[in-house]
């Protein structure tokens, strides 16, 4: 039974979304804006795909549709049920994502609290101010819900009818099953999510950590293999399903996975790929495509997994943040997905060193991006560099945020174990550095 806070927040979210859906001018703005809609998630393209599918023309013949056959099948069913009035579905999916995020937040915080309770004996008594408190836990969870409901980025994504709303719902469900230790549903949703946008594949790393625990500190190799084999089987199954839904043709690979990996579309978005590849000579292209994709998929995966081997939840969130920032066609909806979880980590904020800088950078990027776009495209007095500067600011802010939170997490853990007083070394305060 939802309490008053929960229902009020959900009602606010519902009211704002419904109200804005009736404002045609605002809705049109979001539907056209490149910051919210990318080729991968534009609803216009989905409708085109549904139409082509109905006419028995392969939707993947041109370069318009970039959804997988399975998701296209799903959308066409939704479209048929609602007779084209899908707005309600978008609102419902967005609100559901919010409520699930709130549930996840509660679970995450409870689990962290319990972990701390059991390990309190190992902690230095001095570090008491850093311990989690029951009161703050509930507050943070409420903050997560409120954030989901009034986050302008989420609302914009919903208004733009970007299919990211459904992708985010899928990812949130994945996170939920991750938190509830349900292996099979988790693997299925993870495979679905990665079959749509590839990048969630990296989440297999925290899954291995989470599901391989057999005792307090033991991991069984058997379970690791089980998870990997399950993942492989389900992935293959989904691929086969796509193959059969596409009339036994592999043509969808070209316009989905290859499209995501090779980045042939340079429509400006908030990522860094488009500008970089427009500026570059073609013969370096494949080298840099591979470099950029390795940067997202592999570069951070191993070090982070090793460092955070005892904290799979934080690792899960961190990897989400990283691939949402650096993926090939990011939109604000991706950023909104992991921004909404931020209040969970409110106990780390005291160690975030650049909070003002990060907030100001995000703020500046959000309001300046449409302005520089207007100056570039409409009045012609600015050029692509202006717009790119803003996307750059947004990306740097996200990088700062992720690295700062990571740093704060590690620092807090260290201080919990070792206490808050800094020992004197040769009459000077000791300095610790990562080496």
């Amino acid at each position, binding site marked *: 039974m939802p309490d008053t806070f929960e229902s009020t927040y959900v009602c606010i979210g519902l009211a704002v979304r419904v109200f804005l859906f009736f404002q045609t001018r605002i809705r049109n703005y979001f539907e056209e804006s490149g910051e919210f809609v990318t080729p991968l998630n534009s609803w216009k393209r989905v409708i085109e795909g549904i139409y082509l599918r109905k006419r028995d023309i392969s939707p993947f013949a041109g370069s318009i549709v970039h959804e997988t056959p399975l998701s296209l099948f799903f959308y066409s069913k939704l479209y048929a049920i609602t007779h084209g009035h899908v707005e309600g579905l978008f609102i419902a999916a967005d609100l559901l994502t919010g409520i699930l995020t709130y549930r996840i937040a509660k679970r995450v915080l409870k689990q962290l609290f319990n972990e701390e309770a059991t390990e309190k004996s190992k902690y230095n008594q001095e570090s008491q101010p850093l311990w989690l408190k029951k009161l703050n836990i509930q507050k943070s969870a409420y903050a997560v819900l409120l954030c989901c409901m009034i986050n302008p980025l989420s609302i914009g994504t919903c208004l733009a009818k970007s299919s990211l709303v459904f992708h985010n719902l899928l990812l949130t469900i994945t996170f939920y099953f991750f938190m509830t230790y349900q292996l099979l549903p988790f693997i299925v949703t993870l495979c679905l999510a990665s079959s749509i946008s590839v990048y969630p594949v990296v989440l297999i790393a925290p899954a291995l950590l989470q599901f391989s625990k057999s005792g307090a500190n033991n991991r069984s190799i058997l379970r690791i293999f089980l998870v990997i084999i399950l993942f492989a089987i389900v992935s293959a199954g989904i691929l086969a399903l796509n193959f059969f839904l596409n009339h036994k043709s592999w043509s969808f690979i070209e316009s989905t996975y290859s499209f995501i990996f090779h980045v042939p579309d340079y429509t400006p978005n908030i990522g860094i790929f488009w500008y970089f590849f427009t500026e570059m000579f073609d013969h370096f292209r494949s080298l840099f495509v591979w470099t950029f994709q390795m940067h997202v998929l592999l570069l951070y995966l191993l070090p982070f997994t090793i460092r955070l081997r005892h904290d799979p939840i934080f690792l899960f969130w961190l990897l989400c943040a990283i691939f949402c920032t650096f993926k090939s066609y990011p939109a604000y909806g991706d950023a909104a997905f992991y921004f909404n979880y931020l209040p969970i980590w409110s106990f780390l904020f005291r160690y975030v060193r650049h909070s*003002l800088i990060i907030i100001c950078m995000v703020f500046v990027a959000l309001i*300046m991006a449409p302005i520089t776009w207007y100056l570039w495209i*409409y*009045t012609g007095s600015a050029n692509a560099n202006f717009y790119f500067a803003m996307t750059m600011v947004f990306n740097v802010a996200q990088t700062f945020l992720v690295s700062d939170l990571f740093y704060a997490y590690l620092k807090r853990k260290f201080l919990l174990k070792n206490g808050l007083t*800094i020992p004197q070394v040769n009459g000077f305060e000791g300095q*610790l*550095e990562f080496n």
Partner: protein
Amino acid sequence: MPLLSNLLSRDIPKNFYKFQFQLYSGLFLLGLLGFLYLTSPIVSRRTYLSENALSPGLVSSDLYISVEHIRNIMGRLRTGFKNNDIADVIQLMLNENGIEAYKQDIGRNSTDKPEENIYGIVRAPRLASTESIILVAPLYARTQTKPQQNKANVFGIAHTLAIGFALHRKPYMSKDIILLFPAAQEYGTRVWLDAYYNSNPQASLLDAHAGSIQAGLALEFPYEKFYSIDLRHNGINGQLTNLDLINTVVHLCEKNSIATTFYGVYVELSTNEAFMNYIIQSTRTLLLNVFTLATGISNGVHGQFLRYRIEMITLFGSLDKHHEYQSSPVAMRAFDDVIEGFIRSLNNLLERFHQSFFFYLHINRRNFVSIATYMVPLGFIALPALIRSLVIYMSFFTSSSTNSAATHGRTMKFDAEYSPIFIEIFQCLAFSYVLTWIPLKLSLLGVCLITMLLSPFILRRFRSNVHQFDHFQFITLLIGSALLGCLSLLNFSMALLTACFLMPCYLIAGVIKLDHWFIKFTCRFLFITFLNPLVFLALYHYLAQIIMAGTFVFPDFAQFSNDLDTYCASYHLYNTWTVDVVCLTIVPIWLLLYRSTFGIQF
């Protein structure tokens, strides 16, 4: 990455608090003076042609249009205007000379006859119609002294036609020339452009198209003779024409010894002119630039074209004499050479205007300041807001240089309740959102009075403690700086004036923190009198009047309210967003600051 590093952990020196006020006001004044310093020859730059393709047209002229020919056209136009069938006359003349001509009904009848735009297309023999140049001569032009009065633009139309006839079938033309004669100035132009670009779904399609329009020229000549040309380049919403285009026109005019002015201010550039005179006239031009651009409306039909990325300026035939010995008006031959040179320069152009500057301020026809220079004074003016917000932010946290800061992290000194702050901001925003719907019917005066006198009664008073007030100030300062940042890119002049208005407001609102009834009362009084948006607007109008006239004039309130009414009535026509920005951002910020003087502290 050292584990114990910490940003902003040091204390702000105590001395700094003592000199805060002096620092902020000093920076503000420095910014204002710095802006005036832009006229100095050290800072400003000399204009040059950045696009080489424009230069060949500047060299020699090839056409010869006899004066009799033009007088003949003017005579026919005059009878056309008299008989009220000017549209037919122009169409007939175009057709007689083998130029296709069409009419477009603009859907607005002022007299019994429908008003019509006429346009002709001079097709280029060298290329298919892929690109074109446009020459615009509105049927009626505003007179120099009374902007409300219109006179028939006989001279402008006649020259546009004559040039069109002369360039018809010239072998070197590679771009079409569109000759457009819009009926109701801005309105007619807008209707024609909407139809040409099919941007308005209701607009009926045009009968014929030429290629994409690259650039053009508008001619407004209310008199049949003129002594100098006033170049009008203000676009809507502070948009400006590419500097290369203006330089081309200035260069051609100087070559043909035609004096050119901006805003009617002529700056003598010869070396035997007194330096002081040069500075004064340049400052006048600079200030007029800022004052007129800030309104967001254009001073000619070219503003509508800039919206579609068609670079264009208006040439206005002025009766002012600027040379002491100039007794006769400018010769028609010289003027035709200017237009011919301009068209042949454009004809040579391979790309759209993209070189040179789009963000600049003219100080005279040969000198300008670019964005990199003029942003600096604005930066100085806005810097106090940034410094102050940083100071407030640093005071939020327990800041000690001891090691506890390093290990405890940054913790807030106090717990602040944010909801009343956001409710207050939301209230003010909602309030001014409602106000945006009013000013069209009610004048701004009423709105201001309502805001000031009623808002304390309608809305709940803002209750806060000292810490909350700090948070509140921090947020308003950030909003204000963000607004200035955005405006400075879109419309620098408006940003400058906004900064001049908002910064003192912030300063006064910051003083309210000293919670004493007398201070509060004084602040409130200041907000109502000197820092009132309406008073500021009146002051701005008066200053603009003085600078425009060049001598001292007495304030004229009747004219102020008259101008305000005209502006409110006409800004929709121009597609400007100045009023929206004022209503939705500047007024709420002012309202927030003003309402904070009523705040109760506990």
